[in-house]
């Protein structure tokens, strides 16, 4: 088991180098001079060219691209992500501030997805062709098709603007510091409701459809027939015999759900002014803050690689047919 994890981690290294290289070259082949951002365009003319050269030198921007690349990879390996042009602060600390907010959103959305998606999928499969099944199948397709950012705006309209039940944006209210402890918790949770719901519901819809198909496939297996033939009650046939096998591929699905959620989180964070990594990236793109753009996209890709790794390990844990020794491609 330990050996398997080590091997998978080693396999991830070339992948990470590939990811780092692609981001680096994308960002540096782009048009536009980062100095414009650093100095704010209007002041740029007034600044002594020699000073500009000095700043370039400070950030290593005067060196040829390959040299910058090797340096960047080297720094990366030491965990040094550079310094933000705009905030004049180490990127690593900026990201460390923002990541918890993004993880809060995505992990809670994942939880919602698992609870709602899997149970709806099971209900739908067990009652195949019933009205419930039709409603769930079509309803999930509809929810899956609605752009999350628009759903978010509409829910804000209904629940925040018209009904006034939930806050419109941010992670906490303005009077947060004045609240009691329980008030603080309620305040934070209230701010989480809409973003988590919007983010989770679309992926839950996908999960429900996938779960339904998986379970239907398993239900036509012979061991299910055998279980029924032995006179087992239907609940135990479904929950004990069929469901366990149908859940195995779902584990992989969750590894794949992560990029989907991270992508969606960018938009949801923008709608709710949620100070996560996605919003940081969007702001950085507007400001040509190269070190942040590089670091956020790296982090997003690293999270995805990590998610796949966890999914693979979980897959091997839940499926006894997968042996840790066999070389298996993700």
């Amino acid at each position, binding site marked *: 088991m330990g050996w398997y994890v080590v091997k998978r981690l080693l396999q991830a290294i070339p992948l990470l180098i590939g990811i780092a290289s692609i981001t680096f070259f994308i960002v540096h082949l782009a048009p536009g001079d980062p100095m414009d951002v650093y100095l704010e365009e209007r002041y740029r003319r007034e600044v002594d060219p020699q000073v500009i050269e000095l700043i370039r030198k400070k950030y290593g921007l005067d060196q040829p691209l390959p040299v910058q690349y090797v340096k960047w990879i080297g720094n990366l390996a030491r965990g040094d992500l550079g310094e933000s042009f705009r905030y004049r602060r180490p990127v690593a600390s900026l990201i460390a501030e923002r990541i918890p907010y993004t993880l809060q959103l995505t992990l809670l959305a994942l939880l919602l997805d698992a609870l709602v998606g899997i149970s709806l999928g099971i209900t739908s499969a067990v009652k195949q062709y019933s009205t419930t099944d039709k409603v769930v199948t079509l309803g999930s397709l509809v929810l899956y098709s609605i752009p999350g950012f628009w759903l978010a705006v509409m829910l804000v309209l209904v629940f925040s603007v018209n009904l006034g039940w939930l806050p419109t944006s941010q992670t906490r209210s303005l009077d947060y510091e004045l609240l009691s402890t329980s008030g603080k918790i309620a305040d934070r949770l209230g701010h989480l409701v809409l973003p988590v719901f919007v983010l989770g519901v679309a992926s839950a819809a996908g999960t429900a459809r996938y779960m339904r198909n998986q379970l239907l496939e398993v239900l036509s297996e012979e061991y299910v027939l055998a279980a029924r033939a032995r006179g087992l009650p239907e609940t135990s046939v479904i929950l004990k015999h069929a469901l366990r096998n149908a859940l195995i591929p779902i584990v992989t699905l969750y590894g794949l759900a992560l990029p989907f959620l991270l992508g969606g989180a960018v938009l949801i964070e923008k709608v709710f002014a949620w100070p996560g990594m996605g919003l940081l990236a969007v702001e950085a793109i507007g400001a040509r803050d190269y070190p942040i753009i590089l670091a956020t*996209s790296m982090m997003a890709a690293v999270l995805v690689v990590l998610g796949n790794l966890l999914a693979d390990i979980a897959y091997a844990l839940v499926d006894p047919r997968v042996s840790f020794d066999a070389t298996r491609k993700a």
Partner: protein
Amino acid sequence: MPQEKLELVILPLVPPVAAAKGRSPFSIARRRFTANRLAVVALCVIVALYLVAIFAPLLAPYDPSAIEDVMKTRYLPPSWAHPFGADEFGRDLLSRALYGARVSLSVGLLAMLVAVFVGTTYGAIAGYAGGFVDNLLMRVVDVVIAFPKFFLMLILVGIFEANIGALILILGLTSWTDTARLVRGEILSLKKREFVEGARAIGLPHRLILFRHLIPNAMASVLVSATLMVGGLIGAEAGLSFLGIGVRPPTPSWGNMVSAGQDALLVAWWIAFFPGCLLALTILCFNLLADGLRDALDPKTLMRRYV
């Protein structure tokens, strides 16, 4: 449904000549597709949407960028004169939505074509070559797939300050990996079949085997995923435009209209409401169409019905 089942069960017993008459795989697929009413409706809606987009200049009641008497038309709620209302500059939102359809629908379709072209070629080469080349090419795909797709689009579109042409290219060039994997898988299994062996035996060059025999046979599943992809790409374009980096105002796109609507949410809900409805409807129809195509074209379910 039971009637159709009966026909299909009888099918193998029909003499080959009769089977050739209107019982080609294509006609079976067409019949199965038209039996799925929801998918047919979706196809009709999609065709209607594209027609509306093409004829937008004839259909739009107003000039989408005309600002006349702002004081009179600013934030007009929906009415017969302005079915979708008017925005902060008093522009007619129905007209803007119609012109926005041109942007959203064409970006989705063209980006899909780019992705399918690149993905099919790439996947076919990897699958047909096999061995080291395949391994190398698929590792590249692994790297590209590791990026959250929307994140990658965001960075590229944002950094290159893309115009619509570049936006199409970027969306297409970030979405080809699924097609590549799909086509590679199909080619890997197809190339072991007898008809390919036959083609090789008569001395056909690789290029012809690949483009005349293998790729056309992989197209059925590509069609399904391409249909899904158009919906996804329309959503992606809308998302990017919503963030203010895809299609930029004053050019209307459904995504940037929703963004403008969020800013005016307290005074004019209709600005964000209608373009979003159109987006959801379009994406839903592409998903329904893909579902219908999958059921109609899936050789596995076809076989299951024979047995």
